């Protein structure tokens, strides 16, 4: 480390399932340069102070979605958050809120993965076409209706921002509903009625009380809160109109 490095204190919420009853905070003094991210700060700690510090990362460029943490209590991607913006104050990093902590900064995402699967995140063709009939065509307008909801990188920061998910872990939650909406809005897809069963269920959109913080923290401007709330209206329509339509939604 060269002389002109400043030192920042990083407070880390540590939890080792093999030895700790509950998480505790530990402080590390980390020399840093202006181009160092919070993720690099954690890597410095792992390399120099405690090799057992556990956290997830991959791309280091805000695209893989694996490095989410609470940074001073706010859900952020640690690879695009810079230590210089917190210096000279102490910075606190914790595992993403509302998820069970597996170890240190790593959370248990298995529930989220199940939810992603449950929304049928693939196109279920409205009118299946044979090879001879050629590709499914889509106009730019049709494309624009869902493109925003394809930008999700599954970082789950929105879940860390959602108190309703914290209060009810069964809530399908922002990102999964945003992805569900993405397929519902795709002109090639015809499975909105199938997905309605989940949307309108007790695990569905009505867990949301429009806190709106999920959209605030989303690093990709997916606006999951919008997807959730549009689907409240859809589910309410389905609730009241299901008796009129032969197909209806769920029972």
């Amino acid at each position: 480390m060269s002389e002109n490095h400043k030192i920042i204190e990083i407070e880390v919420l540590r939890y080792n399932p093999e030895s700790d009853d509950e998480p505790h905070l530990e402080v590390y003094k980390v020399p840093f340069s202006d181009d160092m991210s919070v993720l690099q700060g954690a890597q410095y700690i792992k390399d120099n102070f405690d090799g057992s510090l556990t956290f997830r990362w991959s791309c280091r460029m805000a695209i893989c979605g694996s490095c989410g943490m609470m940074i001073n209590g706010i859900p952020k991607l640690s690879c695009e958050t810079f230590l210089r913006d917190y210096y000279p104050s102490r910075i606190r990093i914790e595992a993403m809120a509302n998820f069970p902590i597996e170890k240190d900064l790593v959370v248990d995402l298995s529930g989220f993965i199940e939810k992603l699967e449950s929304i049928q995140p693939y196109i279920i063709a409205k009118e299946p076409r044979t090879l001879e009939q050629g590709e499914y065509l889509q106009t730019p307008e049709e494309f624009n209706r869902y493109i925003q909801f394809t930008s999700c990188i599954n970082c789950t920061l929105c879940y860390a921002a959602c108190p309703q998910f914290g209060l009810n872990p069964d809530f399908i939650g922002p990102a999964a509903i945003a992805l569900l909406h993405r397929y519902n809005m795709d002109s090639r897809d015809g499975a909105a009625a199938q997905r309605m069963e989940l949307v309108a269920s007790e695990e569905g959109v009505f867990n949301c009380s429009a806190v709106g913080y999920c959209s605030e923290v989303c690093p990709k401007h997916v606006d999951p809160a919008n997807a959730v709330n549009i689907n409240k209206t859809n589910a309410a329509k389905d609730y009241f109109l299901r008796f009129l339509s032969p197909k209806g939604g769920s029972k």
Partner: protein
Amino acid sequence: MMKAGLKRSNAPIFWGLFGAGGMLSALFGPVLVFITGIAVPLGLLLPKGAMSYPKMQAFAQNFIGKSFIFAVIALFLWFAAHRIFHSLHEIGIHAGLGAKLICYGSAFASTVIAAYVLLVLGF
């Protein structure tokens, strides 16, 4: 695959009332408070006797006036009941059935009382 055993939520009923009441109170709440609670009692700005008995009686007997009074009282309360019930849950008071009864029950009772009085007031 879809999960098995999903139960349809009955929230749309309460959510619908909540939304309608929230919108009505956002649009009309401040001006109504100003008229009934400040301007008329203090004799500010508005004509004298703006809420005199004959005028209010006529208003409550008029179909539009009747509907307006009913919508304001009932929807304001359904909106508030829904929000308060959720906030109780959010701050960790899971009083369950009790809280539900107090919140939605008082909105329901008030709706019935308002409807009854408005009917008795005649057309």
